[in-house]
């Protein structure tokens, strides 16, 4: 498969999976109300996935990224998303310059 056709397959596949998730609620109906451990597992999906995606950058890329991530975490707990992004980016640019 060429890179161009693989790109298209990936985009269409991601779109199909996302569409299936969005439509499934219409089929499951209002009686689907997971409780207990299943509910806890579903609730954990967004933070677990978001964390897993960025963990290599945060923990095992370099000191600049790890320290900038710490700055961003502090900002995220105290401020808005925009401030968090600006603080994290400013920190990583300065630290990469310092460690570089």
């Amino acid at each position: 498969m060429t890179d161009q056709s693989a790109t298209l397959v990936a985009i269409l596949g991601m779109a199909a999976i996302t569409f299936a998730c969005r439509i499934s609620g219409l089929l499951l109906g209002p009686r689907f109300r997971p409780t207990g451990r299943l509910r806890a597992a579903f609730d954990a999906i967004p933070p677990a996935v978001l964390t897993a995606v960025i963990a290599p950058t945060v923990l095992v890329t370099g000191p600049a990224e790890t320290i900038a991530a710490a700055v961003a975490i502090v900002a995220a707990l105290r401020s808005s998303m925009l401030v968090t992004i600006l603080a994290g980016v400013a920190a990583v640019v300065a630290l990469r310059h310092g460690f570089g």
Partner: protein
Amino acid sequence: MTADLPSASTSTSPAAEIRAAIVDITPAMVAAAPIGLLYGALATAKGMDVVDVLLASGLIFAGGAQLAAVQIWTYPVPIVALLVSTLLINARYILMSASLAPKVAHLRLLGRIVGFHVLADENWAMSERRAGGGRISAPYFFGMGAVFWVNWMAFSVLGALTGPLIGDPTRFGADFAFTAMFIALTAGFARSRTSVMVIVAAAASAALVHLTLGAPWHVLAGALTGIGVAAALGGGREERTA
């Protein structure tokens, strides 16, 4: 559109419902704009073209999954890993759509399917609030979904067009904007001791697997570890919050 069906939640005119929808979703559209620009710029830096970006934003329409895909994107394209990552990130839509389904049950099936295709976190939350346990009007539901969808596509494409002119976005630390945004999104979920433990476990597992097996398997490993921790701890908490 199925606007001919009666709206039970309110007696205001369709135009007023659409205006209310746009007013409600505007802050989310402003917040999504720089993320769309970043997505377009990072995607083109990874080798996608403008048409790819438009297709992805129009058909997938899920910022978190799209940005995660750009993060693990490489050549040859890791299709299976991208699909697994997308399923894991977007599985939350199963619960969101199940919750909203009864509030739009009075709309035509085709309309519900089209409307649910553009269901994102932000317009889902606004629609749930508007419904308030009752029904939601067709103009509000479709109007909000449509403007939010077009907004995301427009800024993604703008990012794809301007990204190459600006050059390698990593020079300005723009690659880290993605990391910082995910930190901000994750912080929004860190509301209980369980969720903090989920985050710590997922981070440790993902970092370890990234060092050993390598990308993109860290996404699956970290996610499953975090979900497993939540399931192990979850039963007890549920009783207190229920």
